Each structure stands twice: as structure tokens, then as C-alpha cells.
């Protein structure tokens, strides 16, 4: 539940870090399952990969890249908190930079898909 005491940059960063991590954890077994179709021969894999031409899958892929980039960038936030002096003096800047990195990477990926 969203409560007033949670409405600050560090908490939002931690929430997105957790949610993107969960999304990636759910994706990973599905990814292996997809790769596993190759065990049924090249045709089986190719038929599955044909699905990636659909716009819906491209959108999902962009979401996945966003989750991955956000999770990685927010990991830098945790390293910043753990290892740099006076991390509290830069919280908002660091969180904004992490969100910026995540969104920029996802946008670049989406632009590349449509190119």
C-alpha cells in the first residue's frame, strides 16, 4: 500500500528494483523454455521465433529490456549507497540517473526495433 512515509526517491527506486527483478526472474525460465524448443530441431525453434515478428512481442521485448536496464542501473544505486561517502546527499540525483539510464536504453532498443 502506498503511504505518505514511502513517497520519496529511495523508496520508489527500491520498489522498481524489486519489481524489475521479479519480472526478470519470471522471464528467465520462459527464456530457457524458448531456447529448449531447439532440442526439437531447428524448425521448432524457428517456428517459435517467428512469434517475435508480432508487434505485441516487440512491445513485451521492449518492456523486458526496460526491466533489465532499470534493474542494472538501480543496482548501481545500491552500490552507491553501500560504498560511497554521504550517499544521502545525492539520493535524488542518483535515482533520477538510474531511471534515466533505464528509460534511455529501452527507448534505444525500441527505436532500433522500428528502424
Amino acid at each position, binding site marked *: 500500500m502506498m*503511504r505518505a*512515509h514511502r513517497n520519496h526517491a*529511495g*523508496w520508489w527506486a*527500491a520498489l522498481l528494483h524489486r519489481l524489475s527483478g521479479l519480472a526478470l526472474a519470471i522471464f528467465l525460465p520462459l527464456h530457457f523454455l524458448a531456447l529448449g524448443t531447439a532440442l526439437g530441431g531447428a524448425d521448432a525453434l524457428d517456428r517459435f521465433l517467428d512469434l517475435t515478428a508480432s508487434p505485441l512481442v516487440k512491445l513485451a521485448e521492449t518492456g523486458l529490456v526496460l526491466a533489465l536496464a532499470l534493474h542494472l542501473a538501480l543496482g548501481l544505486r545500491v552500490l552507491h549507497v*553501500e*560504498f560511497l561517502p*554521504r*550517499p544521502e546527499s545525492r539520493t535524488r540525483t542518483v535515482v533520477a540517473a538510474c531511471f534515466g539510464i533505464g528509460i534511455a536504453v529501452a527507448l534505444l532498443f525500441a527505436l532500433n526495433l522500428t528502424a
Partner: protein
Amino acid sequence: MSDTLSVSVHRGTSGARFDRFEVPRLPAQTVLDVVTWIQREADPTLAYRFACRVGMCGSCAMTVNGRPRWTCRTRVETAARDGRLTLEPLRNLPVVKDLVVDMAPFFAKWVKAEGVFTPRADLGADFAVVPPASPARAAADAAVECIGCGVCYSACDVVAWQPGYLGPAALNRSWTLVNDVRDGGQVARLAAVASDAGCHACHSHGSCTQHCPKALSPTASIAGLKRAVLRAALRGEA
């Protein structure tokens, strides 16, 4: 500014009952002034706690519109922009009555975190010299101004999720002592803060730091403890 303030106050111990009061607005009014007005003018049975009124004792901490704060240092206009206030006791502590919580579990965790100064056996009779510019003294300085008000403990979600968690204030206190060169209790202290209920349970939300009225950073202190525990483990001391 309207003439009155609509104040909803937690009553009893259940969290279910809130009484509403219309309180006259005054210039430069603090939330503590509002609570005092209610008790003196509207309902003398209201229980709340305060002592110094000037941000030194920390006893007037409450949850004001969902945020833990010192009521004596919170102006009404900063907390209640729309003229409404909801006052609740601090979170994560047993409620005694109305706005008063039992601070005993909070301070019990300071003891559990070995937050008590234990002089080294070899200190000698003379004063220990601690150069103010030394890194350890600077690290202790950054954390030592805590007055134990419980705001960080109330803001911490990990305390809410894991009631055994020592919490930001106790760990912050431990960090000041880890940096005290006169202290001889470091092995026990690092073992205490390295437990499941200790520094490694912190999720780095930073709510403690966000809400600390003294602008301290328990988040940074906890990070320091994690590094100290790791160093001790690598040296085989913990």
C-alpha cells in the same frame, strides 16, 4: 488560511477509532500546539507525550498525515496544506493510548545491537586522545547526534515486515561505537549487528534517512556496518 483546522486524532489502542476536532488556526502554529489545544480545550482525556517543545528531547514524535515527525518542529502549514491533519502514534511500536507509544522495545534493540559503550581494558588512567579529524571520529560524528526519538524506526518498512529487525536507530548507534577507538566490545557488537536481524536485513529504502529530523543518515551507518562486518569476516574475526 481558514480559521479552523480539521484534526482527526487516533484514540485508544486499536487503530480503529479516530475523533475529529476543529482547532483554531494561529500564525506559526506547530502540530504540537494543535495537540495541546485539543487536550486543554476540547478533550482532557487525550494522551500524548512531549517535554522540551524545541526539538531536543524527541518525545513528541507522532505520525502526522502518514509521516513520522517531531510535532514540535512541524508547522501546521507544512504538514496540512489543505487544512486537515490526521494524527496517529508512531508506527512499529505498541500503542499505550491515543498518541503515546511504548518505547521499551525500541531501546531494548539498542542494547541488543550492543549499543552500549564498553571501555577497552588497556585504556589506562589518562584520557584517550581522539583527533577530531581522524576518519573514525568523523564517521562517528556523522551519526552521533541521534536523540532516540524513534522517527526512523517508525518510518522503516523492514521493521514493520520483520519485527525482530534491530532497526535504523540501534544500528546507527552501533556504528558510532564501531568507530569509537576507546571501545573494547567490537567482536560482540559486530556479531550482534551481523545477525539475521541486523544490518544485512536493511533494504536500502532510505526512509529512515528521509524522515530523520536531525538529518542523520542511518542508511549510511548501516552500510558502514556491512563493510565493517565484511572486513572482520575476511580477517577471520567474526
